[in-house]
């Protein structure tokens, strides 16, 4: 099932996601208004209260035979009806683009990038974008974004949700709504958004990296002694091993530089599921994740072996992503 998901992958909209996002769920374009994204509209409770007030005014107008009271009652009723049209117009015709999100580690934040396209249309006010932090949670952990949109403008919104579990985390359904202009009606448009964020396991565990095999030999290799050729610095990214941080630079408040070593003469690492000293699958995956990051950070070539999946030795961004993705999508059912 998970593998089937990863097949569909094509970034139609260039977004902030990098090359690794090619394996996340596809982004999409959604138009609010026409089928299947109909805009619904209903009175709010203030709308119902307003109707009651108008009813009372109408009774008063009839009772006192007051011409101007009739005029006012009908004027306010018409204003409410016209405001309903405005509420609809405030949503309809909007185009929403969802770009593929960057993968995230469990425990960090998944970021979904939306572009709300209002080109060639009048300004919109007080839009609410509601989303669900965790689509599987029974209690609704909803978040709401408020935004205005100028005429002819494109707005970018970032929806941040806690990345909770490894695997594909869907953004869930988005609900665009507005109570503009008077709050008497609420127009809303539920959107089934396919976008999912790939969530890597949480990098965890204190077990040291397995020993490196000498080039060509996988078994009884020696652990890297860290005396590989120093290749330079780069900025810290989550998952880097603390051992590679250049702590002296940190003390001088020069950011968090990470030492890089050229792996030219480094041996290959084999990161094996069975080598993790834990019986819990998740703990093992977390440890493997840690190892992958450490190995990648140290510039080693490494291979990953999971029950039912083998990833041949390699290095670099794409290799790291392949390994992490395998960990993210590992299912015990797939073990054979």
């Amino acid at each position, binding site marked *: 099932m998970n593998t089937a998901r990863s097949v569909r992958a094509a970034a139609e909209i260039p977004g902030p996601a990098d090359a690794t996002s090619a394996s996340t769920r596809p982004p999409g374009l959604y138009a609010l208004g026409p089928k299947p994204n109909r805009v619904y509209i209903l009175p709010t409770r203030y709308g119902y209260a307003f109707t009651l*007030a108008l009813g009372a005014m109408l009774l008063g107008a009839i009772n006192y*035979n007051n011409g*101007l009271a009739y005029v006012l009652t009908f004027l306010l009723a018409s*204003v409410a009806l*016209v405001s309903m*049209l405005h509420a609809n117009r405030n949503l309809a015709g909007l185009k929403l683009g969802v770009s593929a999100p960057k993968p995230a580690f469990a425990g960090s934040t998944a970021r979904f990038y939306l572009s709300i396209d209002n080109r060639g249309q009048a300004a919109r006010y007080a839009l609410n974008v509601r989303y669900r932090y965790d689509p599987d949670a029974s209690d609704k952990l909803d978040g709401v974004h408020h935004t205005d949109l100028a*005429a002819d403008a494109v707005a970018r919104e970032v929806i941040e949700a806690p990345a909770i579990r490894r695997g594909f985390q869907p953004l869930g359904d988005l609900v665009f709504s507005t*109570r*503009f202009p008077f709050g008497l009606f609420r127009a809303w448009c539920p959107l089934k958004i396919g976008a999912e964020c790939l969530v890597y396991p949480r990098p965890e565990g204190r077990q040291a990296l397995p020993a490196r095999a000498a080039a060509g030999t996988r078994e009884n290799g020696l652990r890297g002694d860290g005396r590989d050729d120093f290749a330079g610095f780069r900025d810290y990214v989550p998952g880097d091993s603390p051992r590679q941080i250049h702590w002296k630079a940190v003390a001088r408040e020069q950011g968090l530089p990470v030492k890089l070593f050229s792996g030219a003469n480094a041996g290959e690492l084999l990161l094996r599921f069975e080598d993790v000293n834990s019986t819990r699958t998740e703990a093992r995956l977390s440890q493997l994740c840690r190892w992958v990051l450490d190995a990648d950070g140290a510039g080693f070539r490494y291979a990953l072996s999971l029950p039912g999946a083998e990833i041949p030795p390699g290095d670099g961004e794409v290799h790291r992503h392949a390994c992490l993705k395998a960990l993210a999508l590992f299912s015990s059912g797939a073990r054979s």
Partner: protein
Amino acid sequence: MTSAELETRGWHLSFERMVWLSLSLLLVLVPHAPRMPAWISVLFLVLAGWRLYAVKTGKPLPHRYIMGAVVLATLAGVYLSYGTLTGRDAGVAMLAVLAGMKIAESRVLRDAYVVVFLGFFLVVTNFLYSESIPTGLYMLVVVAVLIGSLVAISTEPSALVPQRQLRLAAVILLQAVPVMLVAFLLFPRISGPLWGLPKDAFSARSGLSNTMTPGDISGLSLSDEVAFRVRFDGEIPDNRELYWRGPVLWKTDGRTWTAGESFRRSKPIDFARRGSPVDYVITIEPHQRRWLFALELPATIPRMATMSAEFELRSVKRVRNRMRYRVRSYTDYQIPWISRGELTEGLELAAGTHPRARELALKWRRELAHPRAIVEHALEYFRDQPFVYTLTPPLLTRDNVDEFLFETRQGFCENFASAFTVLMRAAGVPARVVTGYQGGELNELGNFLTVRQRDAHAWSEVWLGEVEGWVRVDPTGAVAPARIESGMEAAIPRTLGPGALNLQPSEPVRRAWRSLRHSLEALNNAWNEWVLGYGPERQRRLLNQFGIDATDFTRLAVWLIFCVLALLAGTSLLLSRRPRTRDPAIRAYRKFQNKLARAGLERAQGEGPLDFAKRVIRTRPDLALQVSRITDMYVSIRYAREGGDARILNRAVAAFGIQ
């Protein structure tokens, strides 16, 4: 948590919102202020001002016990001021006080909505006092501000600055007008009231009563208030024939004249008539009595009215609302019959009154044989003796007829009518007093006549025997013919400005003033007919012209819904139009795009102008020169630093054509 709660989480009553709410309530209460005890206005200002200060400085709300105590105290205050908590005036005072309290304790979104809804109710209460055009216009402004408040409280967050919120409110109000008009015209009308009205629903309005005491009619003569308006089908009769018949008075105690009891019938009474009939429609202002006025002498009875033997028209119900009725009259008539009761009643005088008048009348009776001669003689007497027609006669303290006839000789129509009738009765000629209105102001613009309270008049009718019957005699006309021929204004010139200076405006000023007043009067008349007086009757007649049966409420409701939906669909189309952009370059480029689109070359979503131009040139190389020129110009205006002239672009687009 519901969607609405979730989406309005974090709402707070900002200072700006508080200003909106206080200002809109202040505006709606301004017209009420002079009608309420001053302490209510002061209390409202204090509460709103305090709350604004509290919001600005972040002070907390007072304890709810304190608020409760203030509420109870103000309720007690309203009770002490009005002696009641119900009724129109006290009710409005209560609403005003509650509005102030609500502002003072507002905290959440719901409170803000309650304040605005209270504001709408207070607008309606203003209409219980005044339904004039200025009131309507002012309240339209107030409603726009209230709707602006709705925008301010409901829009979150908002790029809309207050001016734009108000503008949006005004735009939506304008867009709502067509639907409002349709609802106003088509909503099934029934005549109220549905339940009892408070006693003070209509303040006492002046008008003729069914008694006449000296000072009654001259009191009215200062009032410019409209009594009724008349629209004639044909030509308007001469001013001297415009006697609008009201209550006929038989009985006198020497000072006050009262109406007798008389039999009322629903079929018109026959009388001898000559000449052509006069048909007209009267729109009468509510006067809380039953009298309906008609030109002498009415030959038909309006619906829901009856006629007495004296040809008085009376409405079945009190005239509580503006009412319209149609009558046909004959100005040349004869009433050649009298009952035995009337014959004796028409000669009765209170015992021991007016000795000198009786003496004079008896002398005339001895000298003259025929009643008509007596009448002529009496009118001559009024003309010859130094009688003065005046609005401010000296106070009569003793026998008011004798004193008027022989001492002061200054009086208003009621003095003349009353003295003349007494003289006739004393001379053995059956006579009665008729009250009503005389004349009216012609409005050339609307071709209708406005009869005001100051046109109130009293005259006499005398019985001149079987041949002539009851004959109208107006002794005022003998003294001040201008009153009858040209109306009140000619008889007693009005002055502008303070009376002490007695400024006489010049003729052009007066003419300009008159024409202005006529235009206003015509406007008022249309307003009364179409806005205030639009009831079941008028609706039925209007819709009949369109072939709609207004008495069939189901049919009417279907029409109403259909029209409203059609208008809403139209409005919706209007709203979905692409906005006109302010940038002339974009406008010109759109025009260019439209021209290409008509030739089947449509710019794709997300396709840049340069790519689009390339694609166009590939399919239509013949257009290459123009397309690339226009595109280059557009791109440089929009994106290049040095820009360009949008007018040149516009000209290029205008010249651009595709064969």
